[in-house]
């Protein structure tokens, strides 16, 4: 099991939420109003007057074999509109119930 943390511009949210099930991923948790700044390029997402854009975050636990497909999908989405901002990070999941 891997945990995939997706930090995305809120404009991506509805699209990703819809496409997760297409990728056979059922479970996920999400947060609205997530603020942050990328390490490289890209606009900060602060929800402030200067940087009004806002991120959402999606955390999903997937089988190891699904990770590659998910990341590939996200990469394509990001390339489509590079300026919006979309990143994903993968953890190991130790245990669960």
């Amino acid at each position: 099991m891997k945990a995939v943390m997706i930090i995305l511009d809120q404009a991506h949210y509805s699209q990703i939420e819809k496409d997760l099930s297409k990728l056979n991923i059922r479970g996920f948790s999400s947060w609205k109003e997530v603020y942050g700044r990328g390490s490289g390029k890209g606009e900060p997402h602060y929800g402030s007057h200067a940087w009004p854009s806002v991120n959402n975050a999606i955390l999903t636990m997937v089988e190891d074999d699904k990770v590659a497909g998910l990341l590939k999908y996200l990469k394509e989405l990001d390339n489509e509109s590079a300026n919006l901002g979309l990143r994903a990070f993968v953890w190991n999941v130790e245990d669960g119930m």
Partner: protein
Amino acid sequence: MKIYETAVKNPVGTSLIFIGLVLIGLMFYQQLPIDLYPEVEVNMVSVMTSYPGAGSDDIEANVTRPLENALNSTENIKEISSVSKDGVSVIMLEFEWGSDMNMVMNDVRDKVDLVSGTLPDGTNDPMIMKFSSDMAPVLILSATARESSDALYKILDEQIVAPLNRVQGVGTVSLSGAPQREVQVNVIPAKLEAYNISLEQIARVIAAENVNVPAGDFDIGSQTYMLRLEGEINESRELNNIVVGSNSGQAVYLKDVATVNDTVQSRIMESYTNGERGATIMVQKQTGANSVAIVDAIEKQLPELMKTLPPDVEIVTVMDTSDNIKTSINSLLETILIALIIVGIVVLFFLGRWRATIIIMVSIPISLIGSFIYLYLTGNTLNIVTLASLSIAIGMVVDDAIVVLENITKHIERGSRPRQAAIYGTEEVSLSVIASTLTIIAVFLPMTMVGGLAGALIKQLGWMVTIIMSLSLVIALTLTPMMSAKMMRSSKDKKYNRFDKWYNKNILPLLDKLDSAYSKLVNKVTRKRGLTLGVVVGVFIVGVGITAVTLKTEFISASDNNTIMMTVEMPTGTRMELTRETGHKITRLMKEKYSEIEISSFTVGQADTDNLLGSLQENGSNIMNFNIRTKKAKFRNKTIFDISDELRTDLAAMPEISKYVVTPGGITGIIGSSNISVDIYGYDLAETDQLAAQMKTKLEGIEGLRDITISRKDYRAEYRIEFDREKLSLNGLNMATAGGAVRNSINGLTMSQFREDGEEYDIRVRFDEEHRQTIEDIENILIYNPMGVGIRIRDLGKVVESSSLPQIDRQNRERIVSVTGSTYKRALSDISTDVSSAISTLDIPSGTHVAISGSTEDQQEAFSDLGLLLLIVSLLVYIVLASQFESLTYPFIIIMSIPFAFIGALLLLSATGKPLGIMGLIGLIMLVGMVVKNGIVLVDYINLNRERGMSIITAVVNAAKSRLRPVLMTTLTTILAMIPLAIGTGQGSELWQQLGLTIIGGMTFSTIVTLILIPALYSVFGGNGVKRERKKHYEKISRYNQTLTRIKTKNNESSNDYIRPSAL
């Protein structure tokens, strides 16, 4: 869920709600009554008291003064003026605008009741009447006839007046000028004496003979019958055979002592249209009725009615208010349409996309049509103020939508899908859109609270714009994102059509060039800000200088409504026949000389008591009232003001005329031509007369003043019978019986009516005309005493010639004479200065004082009201800005553009030679809200850039480059939408021209200046801010170093741990 999110997610609901709004708006629009001006509750109440037989000075002392004293304490009273005439006292009370007239009426009634008991015996109960703007006639028709002229009254009354009265909305239809039928019994006094019969006896006999008496019921067998006695005469001829007395056993018939004439009344008001004798039919509407609908209905019915008339009777329209309303309204509708097209072109030019343009343009009709719902629900009318509000708002309603759409486009360009871009793009700018709408509302909402005449005019403007702007805000936050989500294409799906390609090739480079040129300019400006500010201040000072020298002020622009009214007076006491002849002479002159005049009609003579409007005008045997209708404005070269001025020259050349007043525009309610009046208060009639005469000569020397008249009437020549009371009582008579006898002989005695076809006509008994033409005739009148002995007047007293003042005017409980003139082609402010200096050269005796009133007074009042409004509005706008920016400095920078707007507005007025009046001032107030918008956009973006970490100058230059287009777009839509209003040539456009010019001048000048001033000022203030921060920081460091030194010396150690301030 937020409102814009809901809207985007429910496109069907959203669009249907707005479609519903438009449908309801259109439905209400159909039902809105049309009128020229917003309904203004007239703040006048009159108290009329009659005291038959009393002279004007008796009336003044015994009736007018006690009533005035009591009424003076009425709440909210502004001015009290009165006219004391022979037999009647009329007090006019003027109340503050906006007083509750029902309360006022109750109050007045109480006050009158309080004193009415102490008024002299014989006074009738005071009549209290509220004036209303509905009293002005909506339509005046004139009927002329040749053969049927004597029967005209009956014909018109039955076949025109009665059917017109039934038209829905018509209040009263009154007929004047047509002679009414009357049966005259003209007695020859010598014959009466011979038979020893009195005139009263004849009248009594006629009354006694001309009756029907029901004698009761009686039974015959099984039936009940009614017994009737029919004594009424069937034909006026039968009167001849009435026995009026007997003489030595012989019956004396009426034909023996008198002639019976079945004829028409003499000494009534006569009216002539284009030189032909006729009658005037005046139509007044019911309160709140739709003038245009009434006139339309009448005009539809009139051709039908005219078919039933004898062929020689012709009816023409002399005055038609609906005509003026319709043309004014239509020219405003045209203005709105042109403005709509202009705004569309501007938006398309800057955005370069059809879809975006459509999304934005949709907000215009919806918000405008939506405002009709408000008009209908509050019972308002569609009038020139409401329509002008629409025209003013057109340029502004698109602003919110533009800002929203622009941000949505930015999101789409960044890669969002239209739907998400619509939601999040709107969310980001929602606050600033609300704030900028609030600044506009902060300007227009206080307008609804202004008092006075100005308030009456702009109240609806305030409400309309507030409502339209609020609607446009709602549209920008719901419909615009919804339509963007549906209609905009994301960047990857974008297809270029031919228009896009053409636009990208031709227009876009142009705009890009403009952007970069402007950012270069701003770059220079921010680096040389001292010089820039110097130049801007210099321009400001020069502007102030020029306006101070050239600007003129006035009250309100008079508008050309194709009507001229004219009152021409011959010397007091001139016979009606002579006056009528002069009237014909003037009519002929107008026909020959003025091709612009279509219809001219005049009335002459004493008005009937039942002719309300006639008796409100000045009337008398020596007075003519002209009502002139010119061709429509576009079919003639001269304005009604020019024609009026030429008429004045012509009238001045006629020696027989003693006074004349030419009023271009006529009675148009609140907005007429300007006048100026010098009021002389004082009790002594001789002194004030002299002063008024001096003032008149002085005013005649002032340029631009016309029609200078003195309000006090001329002393009237009269004959007075002075009875000797001793002789009267010796003969068993008293004043009342003697006076009655004289009145019956001269004026006539009406004791009975002749009935025919359900109509009643007076039977008037009096001396034959040839026996009441000389003083001897009067001296020979026989008065019979109770013993039946006839005594001649010459044996009871004497007839003397004298003169008296027919009328005493008072104002604020003092006698007043006003010298009034109307203005022509010169600004009110200049004339007013000249008049003031003329007054200062007068030698004013003690107990007398002089004041200027008229339009100047109204102007000062309105200007001070509007000045206060300007102050409140500026403060409110500052508050909105300060709370939006959470700063006191930035709003200050933005507010700096307002003085430039004012200078620009006044400069344009000066350049076009227009004076500043109420409308211009309203324009200035509106500018406060409009010009700060540019500043908000610029400063907001500069702040944003700085928060993103740019240096001040970079932030300013970048903001300038990126915000130039939105600023230009919103400004140009506002300015260009005003152009049709400013250059409007349609009827009634004079009123709005000033407003349009003010806004165009102000917006243009302030936009140019602010585009330079704001970057410069921002860099000054921003730079100072940075310096202040640095200084604080420096102080902090030096404090730290000092502390460090102290510790170091204490420890007696040396170290290199200093932080050098210069290193930071």
